[in-house]
């Protein structure tokens, strides 16, 4: 169905765009990224720095692969895992009464208004999680490198050609 494929395309642009912005904003300051990860107080200190260095580039790459449509299903799966991790992180910070900026788009740390923001951050992450789940289910869409690399018989329903 044509409309389904375009929903997938829109989901790729939306989720991919968010990841690209989130990754790019965090790349310039690795020390701040490490502190933001530490502020959640979930991970042991031994791996906090590595996670802090790795997260921004992973986010950027997930975003880029979704936008250009390269290995969409794998990218969407990774996107789901990241959103689940962030939803768990934000929820437990909220539940434990930590008042931290989620650090979702850089920054992070103490935020006196954090408790008002948590519900919105969770709503946003749930929305993006569902968009990512959709892409795991229906990864194929127009304008994707996957169509050139992976499928010789491009799905003709996408282009409207009659199938043989």
């Amino acid at each position, binding site marked *: 169905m044509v409309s389904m494929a375009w929903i997938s395309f829109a989901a790729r642009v939306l989720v991919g765009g968010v990841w690209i912005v989130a990754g790019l904003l965090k790349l310039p300051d*690795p020390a701040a990224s490490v502190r933001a990860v*530490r502020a959640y107080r979930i991970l042991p200190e031994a791996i906090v720095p*590595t996670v802090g260095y790795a997260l921004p580039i992973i986010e950027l790459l997930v975003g880029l*692969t979704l936008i250009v449509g390269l290995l969409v299903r794998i990218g969407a799966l990774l996107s789901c895992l990241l959103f689940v991790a962030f939803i768990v992180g934000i929820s437990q910070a909220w539940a434990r009464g930590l008042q931290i900026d989620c650090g979702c788009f850089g920054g992070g740390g103490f935020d006196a208004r954090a408790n008002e923001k948590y519900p919105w951050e969770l709503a946003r992450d749930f929305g993006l999680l569902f968009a990512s789940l959709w892409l795991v289910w229906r990864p194929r869409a127009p304008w994707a490198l996957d169509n050139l690399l*992976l499928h010789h018989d491009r799905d003709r329903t996408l282009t409207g050609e009659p199938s043989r």
Partner: protein
Amino acid sequence: MTKKQSKATQQANMQRASERAAAIRAEYERKERRSRTLLVTAVVVGVLILVVAIVVAVQASRDTTGQTAAAPAGVAGGFGVPMGPADAPVKVTVYEDFMCPYCGQFEKISEDTLKKYADSGDVQVRYHVVSFLDGSSTTDYSTRAANALGVVLDTAGPDVAIKFHNALYANQPQEGSAGLSDDQMIALAVKAGADKNAISGPIADLKFKQWVVNSTGNWSKSGFQGTPSVTVNGETIKFKSADDLLNNVETAIQDALAK
């Protein structure tokens, strides 16, 4: 005698044969596609993992937190700019960023009170300056101001450093601005009692930059995410406003003294 097949049977056999051939061809193409998909996936995933590994290494080298740094002379406990005697029974640690407006509010109401406790000999206050708000000015003012405080402590001692620290908060720049210039900070330091010739070079060269980076790392590892954060004898003080914070600090000091 071989039985001659009817024309219809021959045709049916031929059609079956060609259908079988088509099925074999389709199966072959399907396998071909699958192996191609696996190959492309493996190559792309491999390249992406390599990119992540390289970037992690680059980021690790860019983050200097924890590298050895010379601390200013006269520092208390590695990062504290001290006010009050080192043998005071109560230690109050104040974590703050010179760009943080909330710290400015806290300073405005707490300076006299904390000085009173320090002068009585009951309390040593240690100001830990951090630089997590460098992004809130256009010139990394948090780092520059914290470095300048280290330079003044190093060259002119704690009393002058505390006066300079208070002067920086009295003249705190707006969030998002360029902050005070080096010359403005030097003028305030000289007014507080520092020697201009001794401080100008190290302030311009950010002599204690790495010390400030480590102070920020220490603050984060101590479990703090924001400023101001205050501990009294190691206990973190909870608060909802600057007034609340000062009240709770005073209560904690009284409790500690009563023990």
